[in-house]
């Protein structure tokens, strides 16, 4: 019996959340340091799992299985494959940097970190679960703390509206998928929620075609797929910095990942049948998201809509159902995760000092905030898919994947988004950080603290590291994609 890495990763944040809740509210320092220590442990463990994953062997590793409710065939079944192991790492990174960025939260930090950690537990749980029931269990755990985090610590003007909208959208999506999952459970006749068994259940093509769409779209709501993406920019903007990071960086991956695990992997025939529709929706995401982002004047809305566009690329990559597209989508999930976390971190730093996010009102921030400026530029380069950065490694295969399908022309349309993205991110970077600083900010912009610096450097290191050495991530994703392709019958 090896050390139960995955259980520890999944349950550690929740356990720490309980411990933090037992602290006195006044012990703000102790709360922060405990949170930081827990974040560091989670980061180290997720690194360990990532590098200890045997990519030559592939398949599911670090498997742990405990009977949870044998009567209904529910088990606590953890395991990671090449698809989920980068996401575990991503969650570890975002959790750690999220704690660093939230160092300055003064209003009820105890509850803040507790809810954030419960959320983290839910996210880790979804990525690690191989049991359909437990996947839902953790999925819902990841949804409700979001409401509180946004509603309590969010941007005063829209938080109530955005938090409720987000929660209801996600809940609707997940319960629709849940019904689909229950029907799968009973139709399979295997009396188990174990996804490895359900994958071999041989559902009839008709059944798969009927239920693929509700299941896939139900999860894809959280992945921000058009026309259900509406909650996401509002949610991102209203959320406090660390929560936006978590949300855009990790939570949206949760939707895409669950749509892949449950939708495509359990109902492959349905996926083939509906692939044109999903690709079309994703195309709208990509292009429409980019155009909307380019006309925003609110810094945070720009990033919010750019997430919609980039997550469209993920959905597109999955929907191509070919090797290149899937590898690209897997990489894009990680790359977009760290990139968008960095973006939101920078936005948060600027907003905390300037108290406005209106791009026309900002300018010249590079002098007091040099590191965030570098961060934003690196993020922009990733975002537009510049070679040498992780975005290129991820987006290039996706476009090749689209080219490999019958709908190759979609690649041409989607490529428009790259141009648009390049224009708006660079424009934003120039307006916010360069040019003349408005007089009212002169002397009021304080430098960032050491925690912020660590967070920024860590996030940038990933984007450049993977961009320069794709071998640090591509082989992992490849093993995962091979498994999916096997389920799709070598398509």
């Amino acid at each position, binding site marked *: 019996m090896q050390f139960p890495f995955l259980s520890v990763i999944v349950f550690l944040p929740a356990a720490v959340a309980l411990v933090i*809740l037992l602290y006195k*509210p006044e012990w703000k320092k102790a709360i922060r340091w405990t949170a930081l220590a827990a974040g560091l442990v989670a980061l180290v463990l997720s690194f360990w799992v990532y590098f200890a994953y045997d990519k030559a062997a592939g398949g599911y590793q670090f498997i742990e299985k405990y*009977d*949870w*409710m*044998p*009567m*209904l065939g*529910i088990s606590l079944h953890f395991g990671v494959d090449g698809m989920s192991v980068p996401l575990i790492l991503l969650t570890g990174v975002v959790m750690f940097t999220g704690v660093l960025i939230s160092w300055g939260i003064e209003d*009820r930090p*105890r*509850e803040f970190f507790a809810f954030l950690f419960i959320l983290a537990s839910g996210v880790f749980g979804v990525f690690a679960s191989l049991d359909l*029931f437990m996947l*839902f*269990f*953790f999925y*819902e*755990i990841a*949804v*409700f703390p979001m*409401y*509180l985090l946004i*509603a*309590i610590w969010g941007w005063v003007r829209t*938080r*109530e509206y955005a938090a*409720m909208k987000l*929660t*209801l959208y996600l*809940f*609707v999506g997940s*319960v*629709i998928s*849940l*019904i689909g999952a*229950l*029907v799968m*459970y*009973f139709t399979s006749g295997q009396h188990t929620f174990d996804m490895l068994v359900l994958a071999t259940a041989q559902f009839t093509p008709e059944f798969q075609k009927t239920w693929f769409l509700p299941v896939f779209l139900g999860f894809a709501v959280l992945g921000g797929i058009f026309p259900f993406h509406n909650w996401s920019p509002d949610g991102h903007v209203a959320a406090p910095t660390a929560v936006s990071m978590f949300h855009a960086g990790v939570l949206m991956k949760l939707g895409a990942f669950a749509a892949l695990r449950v939708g495509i992997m359990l109902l492959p025939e349905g996926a083939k049948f509906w692939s044109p529709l999903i690709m079309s929706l994703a195309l709208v995401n990509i292009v429409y998201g980019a155009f909307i982002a380019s006309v925003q004047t609110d810094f945070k809305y720009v990033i919010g809509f750019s997430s919609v566009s980039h997550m469209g690329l993920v959905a597109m990559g999955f929907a191509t159902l070919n090797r290149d597209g899937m590898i690209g989508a897997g990489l894009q999930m990680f790359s977009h995760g760290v990139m968008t976390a960095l973006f939101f971190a920078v936005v948060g730093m600027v907003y905390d000092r300037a108290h406005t996010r209106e791009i026309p009102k900002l300018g010249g921030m590079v002098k007091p905030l040099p590191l965030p400026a570098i961060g934003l530029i690196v993020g922009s380069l990733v975002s537009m898919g510049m070679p040498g950065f992780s975005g290129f490694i991820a987006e290039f295969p996706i476009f090749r994947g689209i080219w490999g399908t019958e709908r190759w022309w979609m690649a041409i349309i989607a490529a428009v988004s790259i141009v648009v993205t390049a224009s708006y991110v660079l424009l934003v970077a120039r307006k916010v950080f360069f040019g003349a600083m408005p007089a009212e900010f002169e002397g009021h912009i304080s430098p960032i603290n050491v925690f912020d610096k660590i967070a920024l450097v860590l996030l940038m290191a990933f984007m450049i590291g993977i961009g320069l050495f794709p071998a640090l991530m591509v082989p992992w994703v490849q093993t995962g994609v091979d498994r999916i392709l096997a389920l799709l019958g070598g398509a």
Partner: protein
Amino acid sequence: MTNLLSILPEVLLLALGVLILILDPFFKKETARRPFLGWVTAAGLLVALTMSLLFARPAAPVLLFGGMVRFDGMGFLFKMFFLFAAAVTALFFMDEEKLARRAEAYVLLLAATLGMCLMASAADLVMLYLAIETTSIPLYILAGFLRNDDKSTEAGFKYLLFGALTSAILLYGFSLIYGLTGKTNLYDLSLYFSNFTLISISITFLILAGLAFKISLFPFHFWAPDVYEGAPTPIAGFLSTASKAAGFAVLIRLLSATFIWVSADWSFILAILATLTMTVGNLIALAQKNVKRLLAYSSIAHAGYALVGVVAFMGWGLPSVIFYLIAYVLTNLLAFGVVSIVGRVTGSEEFPAYYGLSRRNAGLSLAALVAFLSLAGMPPFAGFVAKVFVFVSAVQSGWVWLAFVGVLNSIVGLYYYLNVLKYIYLYRMENQDEEQHPVPVSRPVTAALIVLVVGILLLGIVFGPWFGFATQAATALF
């Protein structure tokens, strides 16, 4: 000896009631008596619970006392939860000044619990009716216990009138059964109901109406909000949980004993009732501005969810109903406990009373968080698995549309439960510093809240064994 052991919980309840009446005059000074009687009641109930678990567990189902009660797993499980709910309620009583000072309140609580225990195991129409009345009459009095409070008096009186009316309807149904068959034992009636005649249908309707009142099904739900709002909050909590669970116990037993469930038409009628109950409860709850009324409508909706499992019946149907009731009893007791504390400190149950609560008492707010999220059906709390199991059973029995209705309803529910949390966590008290207005929680209530929170988490995370108990209870019915 088995005979007596089979009613051990009831015997112990009676003994405890007598003990309290004896103890009462010894504590003349009201201040000294206040904490003591509540602790005695709660401790006595826990002792009864432990003793029953140790010595009086049922083996194979058996009819005892000339067929009056059926000693089986289902009745036993329900009894244990009634004892538990009563113990928690007794602790909540200690915080309400007017209840805590009077020994009568505790005795009436025990009497009602005694009735519920008999309801869960009654196997004869006569016994059943007596049990229902034994439950109801003390509850009428408790609902109107605050004599100087108009709302409480109104609640008691309203409850009495509605209750008496539906009791009469129920009794009328029972008397028709006896008149037509000459039998009163539930387990002898199955033959009669397997024939579908006009009279058997009308009798079923009469009985259903009587029980629908107890579990506040549409269209017999009107009393619930008014009574809950007016009654002292701990009583409202007890009414909405234990009393409702007892009603469900009777419903389940009647359906399983008389085989009415075999008929698809009855399942369909129940499915319609479940749909209406969920939808009406949830939609009206949306418009509420008073937390107690909101909980009243939400508890109507929850009766609807539980009824979904009754519709599914076979397979996972009954276990899921029983599990749902257990989860719901814990959760709603917690919710009403929170309301009771806030009501005592602020004197109001309206939403503004909850503004800034998380700054006034962070621990209490967390308890509220657990309660409302569990009601909304969020993991890792009991409400999530309970709801999922009910929907699982519905899908299993082919009621996919009913599962969809349930799911849509739980979305509506999520909205208004989250709203309450918003008032607690987000809103601030008007023009006042929350630090200056703490919400103190007394020791007995703290104990009760902690037990409930732990219970909800246990049920929600380690659900396997609990569902096992529920399954055992359900199989004991046949």
